[in-house]
């Protein structure tokens, strides 16, 4: 059976979520593999949310905020960026491929970019295959 990756996506309310809405109002079509969770600011994306998503069965996690300098709360996206870099190192140490976690900037007018981003990530996860760390851990135990 064809592998259909599931992406959990955390979008900030002001830029990225609105950009995703714009993709909708513009009737752009993208892969249905994404599950969007709205947060007020990308700075709210706790690394625990990302880990929890993987643990529950996500094949990838996508975090999006406002472009640098455009954050509705001035600098929450910079905090998000810092956490992202640390988190990615941590994930690598756990054996989780870095393609599984992405951070990107989407403004309220970038519906097209959001559409392309989702399709691109779904495609790269499809190549990567299912998230298997749970099974691998079980064989260790």
């Amino acid at each position: 059976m064809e592998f259909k990756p599931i992406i959990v996506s955390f979008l900030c309310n002001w830029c990225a979520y609105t950009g995703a809405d714009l993709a909708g109002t513009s009737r752009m079509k993208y892969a249905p593999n994404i599950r969007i969770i709205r947060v007020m600011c990308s700075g709210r994306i706790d690394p625990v949310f990302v880990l929890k998503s993987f643990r529950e069965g996500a094949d990838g996690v996508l975090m999006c905020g406002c472009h640098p300098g455009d954050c509705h709360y001035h600098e929450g996206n910079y905090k998000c960026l810092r956490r992202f870099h640390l988190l990615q190192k941590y994930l690598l140490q756990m054996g989780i491929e870095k393609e599984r976690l992405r951070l990107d900037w989407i403004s309220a007018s970038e519906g097209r970019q959001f559409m392309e981003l989702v399709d691109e990530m779904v495609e790269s996860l499809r190549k990567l295959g299912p998230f298997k760390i749970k099974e691998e851990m079980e064989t260790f135990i």
Partner: protein
Amino acid sequence: MEGIRIGVFICWCGTNIARIVDIEAVTKEAEDFPNVVISKNYKYLCSDPGQDLIIQDIRDHNLNRVVVAACSPNIHEKTFRKVLEKAEINGYFLEIVNIREQVSWVHDDGDEATRKATALIRAAVFRVKHHEALFKRTVNIIPTTLIIGGGISGINAALEIADAGRDVFLVEKKNKLGGIAANLDLSYPYMTNMGDMLDPLIDRVLSHLHITLFLGSEIKYILGYIGNFETTVYSGNNKQTEIVFGNVIIATGLKPFDPGNIEEYGYGKFPNVFTSLEFERILKSGKITTREGKDPGNITIIHCVGSRNERFHEYCSHTCCMTALKYAYQIKSELPYANVFDIYSDMRSFGKGCEEFYTKVSRKNVRFFLFNQENGLPKIVKGGDHSDCDMLVELDEKITGKKIGIPTDMVILMVGMEAHGDARDIAHLAGISTCKNNFFIEKHPKLDPVATSTDGVYIIGSCQGPKDISESIAQARAAAARILGVVSQGYVPVEPITAEVNEDICCGCKTCLKVCPYTAIRYDLVKKVSYVNEILCKGCGTCSSACSTGAIRCKHFTDKQILSQIEGLFSTSIEV
């Protein structure tokens, strides 16, 4: 958790959602989600009968949590919160699932869309269980308003507010008021003199007791939040004035498109190729002549310069067609024997009195040629040796399908409008967003056209997109009315979504103080813990994610709520 009674309501949005998502299947599926008491669907939940249905079910089934799966929360979250309040439960016991903008409108595969909608609704059911009652706070409003930009929009907004007896700070970058309107001779379609309309308004601004005018001035930052903003106005010779205000209106307008980089039009190369604004100056001088001082026998007007063309701007600049017709009319009135050639790519004469004006002008023996944008732009070349005219305009005429050349003494380029080069800086200092063309984005394109995503910040006139004078004035007065309403009330309700510190868990590491962009978190030296100033806090939640002990909760976006939402996404075997 005991006593949680959830109602799930799924909207068809006519065919918008129902066409793709199998509503009945999702409704049925949702019946079995934990704590769900009823699951229903309806054609339009936002309609009055739709809202009544939810209210009735809340009462009949004693519901205490509601999930509405419909359009984006940015559209109707407030509507449905009010529905809950009408049924006498707290408005924050609601979770909206976006199955229109983020499901039915973006996916073609019905099965996949249905599966996704089901997962999202299940996640919302898991989340809403943990919602808490929240209560709106109010903040007092400083009754003064800052208006940035002294064009026709800014002037009208300033007068509307000042006439109601409220103080206005009007800041204009240039040394005079009036903006682009001040450069115009007559206005379409009634050919009223612009100066006759604008000058009395400017005089009133200059002498108004309630308007403090800063000419040749600018601002570089805005601090604060609705009701309580502050900034410094920088004026010439290093003068700085610190001001406080409750609301801000941005009326920075736009600038004319520079045709210099359109090679075909030879602007700058041929002396008698003018932009529309340059031609206004010629009209204002009282006599239409070429640069050499001769009466032009042949005048060509070219539409859509910089507009409706992917090389420049994709959008329509909205006012140029009517302005072109105005010029044709004025030229024909002043120089009845001159030939006027109007090269257009679509004649957009909508609006009251405009189509009638088009008819009137076309009966004045003005010659119209339709050019095909796809076959390239008209081209201005040097007139031949045997021609009396200096220039020849060559174009692909769409109706006849022929290539034609028009000998011309004078060309008027109907330049489009574009956002200012520093529009993004202005957006940044006011905390609002810009669209891909750098025009400011309104809160809702139809339902809330002058407000922005930042409370207390309004946008009027052409900084939001090309507009004519009457539309700009309508927006100016709309924003003024909104502000006067808030100011007369004296306070405004603000979102209760803020952070809070659990003193028992806080270890006093002060990490949250460093990440807060609003200095809303302070440190209690006696208790040795952090605490949140709820008036300053805007609820971004960055502190909550940074807190190492989990002492800070971001209300309505708590860890518990979001983690449950994630669990909900994956909790059954439907997911493949």
